[in-house]
């Protein structure tokens, strides 16, 4: 049941990102809801589970994206693992989560660009770096908005 809820949340985020993407786009930048959700998940579940949910989210995203199939599955799996590892070092609070979201967004974007440059020879430009920073900021803002929901949900679970 727990997994069903989380897969449901992942699908919901995916729908939000694909169907409502144009609504939440600011200056051509849309947030990565899935990454934010994976980080929240990773902060309360094991590394293994975080990796699994990252993979599922990524493979679903890849299926709906024109990007290379597996690129998001790979990066989100990695992000799940890293976030879950960070959790072991820092307690779950707003600052640690927001910092994780910001840093992991940067890492994920760089990883994607690295993989893209390997598989499709894309070139990373300075404007792309600015774009990555903005995505990281946007994701952090989304993290601020989402944090109370997950915080209350966790209290309910306890």
């Amino acid at each position: 049941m727990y997994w069903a809820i989380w897969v449901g949340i992942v699908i919901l985020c995916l729908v939000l990102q694909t169907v409502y993407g144009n609504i939440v786009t600011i200056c051509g930048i849309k947030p990565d809801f899935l990454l934010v959700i994976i980080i929240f998940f990773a902060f309360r579940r094991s590394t293994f589970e975080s990796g699994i949910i990252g993979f599922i989210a990524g493979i679903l995203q890849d299926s709906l994206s024109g990007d290379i199939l597996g690129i998001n599955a790979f990066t989100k799996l990695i992000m799940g693992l890293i976030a879950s590892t960070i959790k072991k070092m820092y307690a779950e609070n707003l600052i640690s989560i927001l910092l994780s979201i910001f840093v992991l967004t940067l890492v994920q974007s760089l990883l994607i660009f690295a993989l893209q440059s390997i598989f499709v020879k894309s070139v990373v430009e300075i404007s792309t770096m600015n774009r990555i920073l903005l995505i990281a900021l946007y994701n952090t803002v989304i993290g601020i908005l989402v944090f109370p929901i997950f915080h209350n949900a966790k209290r309910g679970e306890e």
Partner: protein
Amino acid sequence: MTSFFWRHARTNVIVVLLSISILLMTTHTSLSIGYLKRGIMNTLLPFQLLGAQIKFSAQDFFSAIQELQSVREENRRLKEEKRQFSLERRQWQEALSENKRLKNLLNYQRRIPYETVAARVISYDPSNWANTIIIDKGEKDGIYRLAPVVTYQDGKEGLVGRVIGVENHSASVLLLHDQNSMIGAQILRSKDKGVIEGDNYRFCKLKFLPYDAEVVKNDIVVTSGDGGIFPKGLFIGYVVRVGLKDRGLFREVDILPFVKFSKLEDLLVIINKEIYKSTFKKEEKDYLTITTMNGKGNQ
């Protein structure tokens, strides 16, 4: 080997998944990968359709609200425009009606063989027991006391009354149907003469008509010209009731004036220099007589 795998099952699963991801990336252009992608896409399609449906419904809802606001705004604007148009239309109709009225009056003015001064009604008598009007032309415009006033109204010309008081730029007119108004008149058809007297209401009475006068209902009555104030032949009204012949020396006839006194607007004051001179002389003579008498009295 198997026991090693199960001992590190979780790590191995992760490694497997990472390997699958890398495999997918390396073979992302292959046909079988395309099938896999399409399969996942088809699985997610219902969720996307549901999301899109919710989005469209929300968009429809908000656009309906926006539309309602714009419709409300448009409605307000149209109401204002309608009010403006109806106001302009009313002004236009008034101007048209005035133009028509003045054109008729001008034609009438050209037809009558007297010099006339066009005037407008400024005010009506506030009393129920007197029927006078004030016009916007006075002595400075050549108006004199006792000058006849006529008009052209609804396709009919008719006598309105006479000037009874003159100021520099205005004059009072005693209307035909006032009880103090007495005008020499005659039946147009038979030439039988009498005196028109007002009744303060709608009708006038043609009095002093000879007992054997030929008069029937709808006979037209005009001024007789007797007395020298009103020129002969000005239309007054038509007979609506003829008195019985059974007794007395005269017959009494009820006349309905052609002019509707409640709708008076534009008038013509007939200027007859001869009458003016004679009237002025008479008034001057009367004035001198009175002054002389008073002077004598004082002496």
